[in-house]
């Protein structure tokens, strides 16, 4: 019966086809690793580990060290975390524990819309609305009150690490708050009731039971946010001021790893310059890859519940 055999072949072919497309995902990741390493090879050979610790980035003399951009990335991302974690978790507590449904749904929706706004629109807003406000209001205030710290000293430019940190904070807030909210909603009510029945207030119940129960999921949310902040490109590029110098002051213009690529990649003429930029892209890829793996593992763990309390 040739007809039947044909159907069988079709059947096999379809399954194989889907597998082929699924494998493409692995091929793409593998391809990224391969081509990025290949592209970065000249810089890897020339500078080795010095690339990570040298502060000299000089396209004319072809000497490249990525330290200022690594610093800019870490400083702006950490600042973003410092701002976004309390805000995001606080908002998640309100949305998961306190808000009545008729407030919860539209507010959660609005916060999720924040995640849909294109990065370049954040950059535009950051450049023309937020940065002038930072220069005129926030930075003078910080210098007056916290100027004894080197972080808050120096002329107020508006654009700089502080501006990048604030924009990144706004951009990772939805990630942190919506993942934390999901995690808190997954905490069984029996846990809350047990604490309330002991005479705990709503806050005590949240702080001592709900948040610890969802702890690893919330940490996962934070790492996910960190991954986004490190790799976030356009908004950071537009508000960080693009300076090749390194300064401790948060008011000072700087560059992130992503922003230096945007600024110089299309104009890089020498092989070594291009390779150095590709190496930066590769480092960025590796770091975000590791953070993402870590975050997903943590979030997955919470979805299964803490050890020893799996329900039948």
């Amino acid at each position, binding site marked *: 019966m040739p007809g039947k055999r044909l159907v069988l072949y079709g059947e096999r072919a379809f399954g194989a086809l889907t597998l082929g497309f699924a494998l493409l995902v692995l091929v793409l990741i593998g391809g990224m690793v391969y081509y990025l390493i290949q592209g970065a090879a000249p810089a890897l050979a020339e500078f080795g580990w010095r690339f990570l610790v040298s502060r000299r980035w000089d396209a004319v003399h072809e000497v490249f060290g990525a330290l200022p951009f690594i610093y800019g990335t870490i400083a702006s991302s950490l600042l973003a975390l410092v701002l976004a974690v309390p805000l995001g978790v606080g908002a998640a507590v309100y949305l998961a524990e306190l808000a009545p449904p008729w407030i919860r749904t539209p507010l959660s929706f609005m916060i999720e819309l924040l995640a849909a706004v294109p990065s370049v629109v954040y950059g535009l807003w950051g450049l023309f609305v937020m940065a002038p406000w930072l220069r005129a209001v926030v930075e003078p205030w910080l210098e007056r009150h916290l100027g004894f710290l080197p972080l808050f000293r120096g002329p107020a430019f508006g654009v700089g690490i502080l501006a990048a940190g604030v924009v990144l904070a706004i951009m990772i807030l939805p990630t942190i708050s919506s993942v934390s909210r999901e995690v808190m909603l997954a905490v069984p009510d029996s846990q809350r009731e047990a604490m309330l*029945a002991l*005479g*705990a*207030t709503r806050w005590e119940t949240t702080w001592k039971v709900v948040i610890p129960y969802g702890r690893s999921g919330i940490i996962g949310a934070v790492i996910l946010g960190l991954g986004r902040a490190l790799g976030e490109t356009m908004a950071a590029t537009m508000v960080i001021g693009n300076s090749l110098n390194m300064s401790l002051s948060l008011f000072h213009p700087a560059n992130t790893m992503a922003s230096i690529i945007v600024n110089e990649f299309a104009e890089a003429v020498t092989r070594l310059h291009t390779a150095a930029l590709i190496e930066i892209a590769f480092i960025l890829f590796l770091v975000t890859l590791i953070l993402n793996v870590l975050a997903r593992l943590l979030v997955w763990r919470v979805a299964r519940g803490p*050890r020893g309390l799996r329900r039948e």
Partner: protein
Amino acid sequence: MAQSLTVENLNAWYGDKQALYEINLHVLPAKITGIIGPSGCGKSTFIRCLNRLHEVVRGARVSGRVLLNGQDIYAPRADPVLLRQRIGMVFQKPNPFPTMSIFENVAAGPRLQGVRGAALHEVVERSLVQAGLWEEVRDRLSQSGASLSGGQQQRLCIARALAVNPEVLLMDEPCSALDPASTLRIEELMGSLKEHYTIVIVTHNMQQASRVADYTAFFLEGRLIEYGPTAELFTRPQDPRTESYITGRFG
């Protein structure tokens, strides 16, 4: 000090759905009062009204009065948080806090009230002894509460409730998730606790009610059908519906 509870004209709702109708009941101090009835008869809702946990559920509502030693717990100025320190609760499924150690589970309540140091250790030990768990866990107080067996977890939850030094102990089908041996331990435990605490226990199991309860109330479809000394209710029920329930004709 064990206290009495007087329930007057209690009604309860989940959203638009009424779960309890005009309940009137007097719970005697230092006695065990059993609440029986088929699934969905409102017995769990009832017990959750006694420590104002019902109102925590979204859309839930209560009317009527519940007097704890003469004071209405639903009075406008009454504070549910303070109330729950006086009325402890044990739930259907053991629900220890999985992120806390055995010690911390029991210490959670007293800690809220600011008990610290030696006094805290004393309270934890006393509560674990009362719950009959001390001998089994004294050497591993720092292990996770979730590492215990089901029956031990439930006794841990009882110790946790006792540690706040309540006057009334509410138990919502505390043995429904346990094996017979653990059930027996908890029933024995209730007998020893009743000198100090007023106990209200919801149970699905009529034998359990007849074994442990001094007084029994029978609920059906959100209404209190009959209430009296356990022996009387089981041997000479006044209401035909009670009779058909205890003789196993429904539920």
